[in-house]
């Protein structure tokens, strides 16, 4: 029998499908091509690393001052950024202050992401009464302007870093619940989720494998936009006497204690707030960049 030659019996070479680059790889690539986002990322990394390495980088002790060298201007030999109202080295205190300011700004967003994301996904996936209870509870928090509720809670609990963290977390949870709830509701009834349920997958498996991947994106972008708000609020609470207490170095508190120095050393007095502004601006621009990198059509 002819007609079938040997060549036709050999299996065709497998179609080489290049491992399709994941969605997040694409987002990362687009983000890395955006010069503004990359600059912001570099600035943030530099500030975070400098804050973490404060004990090794700082030239002096953050708590030791001296009456004879109060409010030295920027550029004084031995004190590159001058000294504060108690004669403590500014560079040292800005480095140390970054630790607490960044922690107090970033930690509430992380905690709110965990709690709010979980609550929102449950509300969206389970629906019904559970949804109603969770969403009505968030409505109550939404009835307060965020800063007002943060001041109310921190004001009632009293000054202190832990109380500020708690107050900010409570304020940030509801918006994250809303975003994750609406994202989950949109995904819940799609065919592939329905199919997973039909094949007998349990609720937790369905959420973990099929829902979470689709909810994470919008929720993470949203949470990234909250970082700037959280940093400003945290330092603001310290500024008005809640949050960090003297002599702890913290940017908002430093801005408050240096207020009387604006007449003699205006540039020096503006430094801590300037850092809050730079960090907040960088977070906002990076969040904007991330958002446009994720919009693929």
């Amino acid at each position, binding site marked *: 029998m002819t007609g079938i030659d040997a060549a036709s019996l050999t299996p065709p070479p497998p179609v080489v499908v290049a491992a399709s680059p994941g969605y997040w790889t694409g987002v990362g690539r687009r983000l890395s091509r955006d010069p503004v986002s990359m600059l912001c990322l570099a600035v943030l990394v530099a500030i975070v690393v400098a804050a973490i390495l404060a004990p090794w980088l700082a030239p002096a002790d953050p708590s030791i001052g001296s009456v004879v060298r109060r409010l030295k201007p920027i550029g004084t030999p031995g004190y590159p950024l001058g000294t504060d109202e108690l004669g403590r080295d500014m560079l040292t205190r800005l480095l140390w202050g970054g630790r607490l300011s960044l922690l107090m700004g970033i930690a509430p967003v992380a905690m709110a992401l965990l709690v709010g994301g979980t609550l929102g996904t449950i509300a969206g996936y389970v629906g019904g009464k559970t949804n109603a209870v969770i969403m009505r509870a968030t*409505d*109550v928090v939404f*009835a*307060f*302007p*965020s*800063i*007002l*509720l943060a*001041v*109310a*809670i921190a*004001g*009632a*609990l*009293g000054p202190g870093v832990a109380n500020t963290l708690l107050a900010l977390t409570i304020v940030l949870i509801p918006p994250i619940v809303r975003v994750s709830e609406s994202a989950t509701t949109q995904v819940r009834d799609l065919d592939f989720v329905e199919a997973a349920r039909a094949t007998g997958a349990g609720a937790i498996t369905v959420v973990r494998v099929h829902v979470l991947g689709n909810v994470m994106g919008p929720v993470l972008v949203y949470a990234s936009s909250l970082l*700037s708000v959280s940093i*400003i609020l945290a*330092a*603001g609470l310290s*500024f*008005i*006497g*809640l949050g960090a207490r003297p002599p702890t170095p913290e940017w*908002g508190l430093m*801005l408050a204690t240096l*207020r009387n120095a*604006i*007449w003699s050393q*205006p540039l020096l*007095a*503006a430094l801590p*707030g*300037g850092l*809050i*502004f730079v960090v*907040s*601006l960088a*977070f*906002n*621009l990076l969040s*904007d960049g991330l958002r446009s990198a994720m919009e693929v059509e």
Partner: protein
Amino acid sequence: MYGYVAKRILHAIPIALAVSLVCFLLVHMAPGDPLTLVLPADATQAMIDTTKAKYGLDLPLPLQYLLWLWGVVGGDFGTSISTGRPVATEILGAIGYSLSLAALAAVIGFALGITLGAIAGYTAGTLLDRMVSAIAVSGVSVPQYWLGIVLVVIFSVDLGWLPAMGAGEGGVLARLHHMILPAVTLAAMPAGIVTRSVRALVAEILARDFVTALRAKGLGRRAILLHVARNVAPTALAVMGVQLGYLMAGSILVETVFSWPGTGLLLNTAILQRDIPLLQGTILVLALFFVGLNLVVDILQPLVDPRMKRT
């Protein structure tokens, strides 16, 4: 329309009650005995007894809430520990200052935001758009308490043009003179947010088919912008309503910087003196103002957006 208004009002009542409940619980959230929190440290036994009876501090919590709420409805917010005067009196004396500051800041912020947003949205993608967007993101990112200090350094310390603190004595002009710096400081955030919202809305609506159709039939630029404005108005109004509420609340930081004698400074006093009744009353009034404002925005929205009348 009346049905819609009634529905919104009915919806706002449970929210207002929930807000009052949160404010009530603030006293119980604070560490320590509620009794010592609402009384000065040197309170006499007689004062302790009257307060106990008045607030029903030995009653179960839900009853205490109703008792407190009854007082609040009648205008009794308790007595300030730091001044010894009724909290209601303190708030009445301060709220006018905050309202006028917020109103001026709103005028500045919204006018700036709408103008810049419309320009950026109309020229989306150009250098001008990028420059306006950069200003807007700075407005959103700047800590107001720092911006206030920087403006004081420039306009009070260096140039000596404007006063750095206080509300000014005598006359509307003196008042306005003192209001400029705090109002501009307070306006930065809403200006940035409104610019960003309006820019996005204008750019989105300009890209719609109906605008292309209007252009194709030869409609002038001004008439097209009118169509765009009508479509932008409802959402822009909602954004601005929320921002107005935030202006009242956000003024706590700005009023602290400028020693502006409004509700923000009241809150600052309450925090520094651990004056819980004053804190509770001020928060309650500001939060209820915010609830009322949201209600007004909800009711106004169908008036500018006929599409919403179907409900």
